[in-house]
């Protein structure tokens, strides 16, 4: 509990001349839910990409539970316990909803994948996948092809995949974006549930202030790729730098 589960030190990436993430040093404690905020293009998604490995860092390190994982591949980081849901829905479009989640559960297995057994006969896998689907209320649509799902349901499946990964660190990137008012609570309740289980670490990129207020233990603010504020939600929201840099207009909306 005392040493951080995840830590970035001087994490930087440059795209040509543009510094998208600028020497971000930040530690995340196990059991904590941290909201990451910042204006469009601030580098939130890129910060996630650096942590989960989709983008290679120009400088700095990422440490997971004491291991330097900066040079590890995406799949290695995933197996080490970093789970990621994407801002832009990123699914297996022509496979069924159930198959999407089953694949994730299967990936959690022993690492040995059989070539000669029948996937269909692995009922444990199917049961686990169905349980996850129930948690996001997609169990009725298990047999549908993903491409046939509504946008809101695709977003839910995106979250279901992260839940099925059962990671040590959950990274949600605007999980409720584009969801209708009656769909969003399913996802938010689920995140609240993860939070109640105090072993889970959650990183949440979110724009909606009411969501942040109810869920976050801590807020960090990115601006032009740099970390400009970090602390208790009330203090961060009230701080001048945040008011000026970004939140003035958003706060007025609330």
């Amino acid at each position, binding site marked *: 509990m005392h040493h951080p589960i995840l830590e970035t030190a001087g994490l930087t990436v440059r795209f040509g001349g543009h510094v998208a993430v600028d020497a971000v040093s930040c530690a995340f404690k196990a059991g904590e839910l941290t909201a990451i905020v910042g204006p469009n293009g601030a580098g939130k998604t890129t910060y996630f990409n650096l942590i989960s490995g989709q983008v290679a860092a120009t400088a700095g390190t990422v440490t997971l539970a004491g291991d330097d994982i900066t040079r590890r591949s995406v799949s290695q980081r995933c197996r080490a316990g970093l789970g990621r849901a994407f801002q832009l829905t990123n699914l297996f479009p022509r496979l069924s909803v159930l198959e999407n989640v089953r694949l994730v559960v299967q990936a959690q297995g022993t690492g040995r994948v059989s*070539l000669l057994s029948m996937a269909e006969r692995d009922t444990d896998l199917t049961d686990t996948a169905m349980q996850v689907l129930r948690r996001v209320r997609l169990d009725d649509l298990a047999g549908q092809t993903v491409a046939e799902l509504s946008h809101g349901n695709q977003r839910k499946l995106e979250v279901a995949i992260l839940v099925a990964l059962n990671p040590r660190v959950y990274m949600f990137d605007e999980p409720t974006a584009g969801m209708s008012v009656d769909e969003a609570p399913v996802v938010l309740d689920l995140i609240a549930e993860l939070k109640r289980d105090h072993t889970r670490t959650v990183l949440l990129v979110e724009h909606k202030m009411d969501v942040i207020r109810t869920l976050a233990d801590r807020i960090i603010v990115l601006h032009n790729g740099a970390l400009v504020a970090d602390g208790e939600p009330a203090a961060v929201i009230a701080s001048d730098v945040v008011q000026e840099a970004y939140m003035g207009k958003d706060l007025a909306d609330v």
Partner: protein
Amino acid sequence: MIDTILSGDRPRSMTLAALLLIILVGLALAPFLFPGVRSLETAARICIFIVLVASYDLLLGYTGIVSFAHTMFFGLGAYGVALTSVHMGRGFDALAVGTVAGALAAAVLAFVIGLLSLRVRAIFFAMITLAVASAVAVLVSQLSQITGGEDGLNYLIPRELTPAFRFGEAFGVKLNGRLLAYYLVFGACLLLFLLLLRVVNSPFGRVLEAIRENDFRAEAIGYRVVAYRTLATCLSAAVAAVAGSIFAIWLRYVGPDTTLSFSIMLDILLMVVIGGMGTMYGAVIGATLFVLAQNYLQTLMGSASDATSALPLIPDLLSPDRWMLWLGVLFVLSVYFFPTGIVGRLRGAR
């Protein structure tokens, strides 16, 4: 039982099930239903191409990898059997050693190609396979001391598999070694096909489909995409090589034209697309239709041309020399009307 044999992958269409059953029975009883040398040649060729096309579909349809080296692997298996039969002498041991060696060589070569290129973009793999396949084709025709060059190699197979070995008559058909050879081809191909059907319906096969759908996400949920792609490539190559070995046993001859040529590669592509990518049954339908068309379209057109000889223009169009044109027309029509292939269409367009 049936479910286990078919690995739970049911045809899911009455018409498809009926077609598959007709093809199965037709091939199983071919020597008795369609006696004659030519029809037996056609039946054996269908069996072998079903396996060859299915192994290619494992790569193209299931994993989403484009390769132009499939005939090269096919050729490796065929030359494996030919070379061992030439050097070890006629015998089943030569056939076995040649088959195993060919499959191993194919898998190793596929592994090397995969290692060099699968990390990079998919298009790079396609280009490398094209380059390697052309290089191997040139090499085979240059090294004529070993490979027989353009003339290829003739060799003897065990007497038990030749027409000279006779052991009676049944249903008016002479029972001889050629018949045994056909059933060796049929049995081996059936087993290989069912093996591939199992592989694509295994947990491994599901991952391949996931990679085809979205390799980025497959990696993000913890699968080592490069390792899966490489293994799929090796497996596909090894099965193609075994199909080549069977072909070599059947033909008692190998040459660049029959096993390595680029036109066979094109035929395989056409068969996959006509049958339906990403369904093993597509390979059965595609290969059967294509090989039948290849062998009988000319004859059919010849008689149609004669029958219409009184009419203007039509006999010309139907002249047997134009069979390639009609095959092309059939291909365009089938892709236009069945973009998901015949099997995709029969299973209900998605």
